């Protein structure tokens, strides 16, 4: 399982196409993040629009990305969320930690 990444200089987008509730999808996120981080992107946008289920393990992986970027003055953003994922982010107050990216 691999997630698609696209990069535009400083900014990169990771499109997560599986539910973030397993070791496989968590590892796929970690690999995709490492790829864009090592290529120099310090603004990373997570596109979770295909994700229906996320659990604390998946959120742990998202926060791992947040921590690495923050330590390097970078920023982790999310495309507008919906449904269960949005409610879970709000429940954990992650919406206050991760800004929403409205662009394409």
């Amino acid at each position, binding site marked *: 399982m691999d997630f698609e990444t696209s990069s535009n200089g400083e900014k990169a987008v990771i499109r997560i196409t599986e539910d973030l509730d397993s070791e496989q999808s968590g590892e796929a996120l970690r690999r995709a993040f490492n790829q864009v981080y090592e290529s120099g992107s310090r603004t990373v946008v997570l596109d979770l629009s295909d994700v229906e289920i996320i659990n*604390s393990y998946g959120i*742990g992986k998202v926060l791992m990305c*947040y921590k690495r970027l923050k330590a390097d003055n970078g920023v982790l953003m999310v495309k507008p969320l919906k449904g269960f994922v949005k409610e879970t982010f709000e*429940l*954990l107050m992650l919406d206050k930690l991760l800004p929403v990216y409205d662009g394409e």
Partner: protein
Amino acid sequence: MAADLQPRFLLVHEEAAFNQDYQNFFKQNGWNCKVASDFESAVKEACCSDYEIVITDLDLLGSDSTAFMDKIRLQKPNQAFMVVCSQNQAASGIKALRSGALDFIQKPLDLRFLHETISRIVATLREEEAQLKLLRRLSNYEAQYKFSTMDLVSVPFVPPILNELQRGGVIDLNTKLKISLAFQEALTNCVEHGNLELESSWKEDFDASGNDKFTMLKEKRLFDPKFSERPVVVDCSIYNKELTFKIEDCGPGFEFPEASKFSVVDEASLLCYGRGLRIIYGTMDRVRYENGGRIVTLIKSL
């Protein structure tokens, strides 16, 4: 809509000239419509026969729908009502809603709009009735599942009752996912912090190779029968419209935090640990720890 599922309703309306038109219209649609044209006969008809909904014209009742509904409810406490009012009677329509009418529609009556409104309300009533039937059927639901620690590490367990409640319309998909997630988080706590005796703070304790203590010890203990064969027992029940999960592990117990700890944003704890507990407390209506933290009970009102 199949013939045996056609709405059966009583229309209470004083304009006799139109009553036959109404009946004809609804009969053409295969609906079972009866018309009553005065207060007393309407009450008698509603009390003696079964109607899914009674639709009453406020002009007939002198704008006092409450007395009419109350009189019928003495015999039929669960009778559903809708009112018809003139455009200058909107306040009475609102008053009828406060007295328990499901909706009001304003004159002039448009038969097609009336048809659509009744269809919608009857469909909702039937869904509610089906949900109540399911809850009654499940009113003494009890199930118990026993797992070894190893069973739960490899495959996530979703209590089958959640699927049944969703299929029956008692909970929607989002609610099922939220309860399921809270349950999974509690189960994970019992496995990881209970039976495997792992501490969250070890996730931040790295060795020289960059491996964290939590993951390393977890992998090791899963192959140690002393830890991996410890059981987890899950009791699921429904009583008084409350869904309860009781999860018991065989670990040493732990100091459980109070819900108030999770009411503020705490970036440090969010980044390290506490996310599962925040999900549990934020989703369930009540959370109870017993036996030194070895038993957690999650309760959700349905």
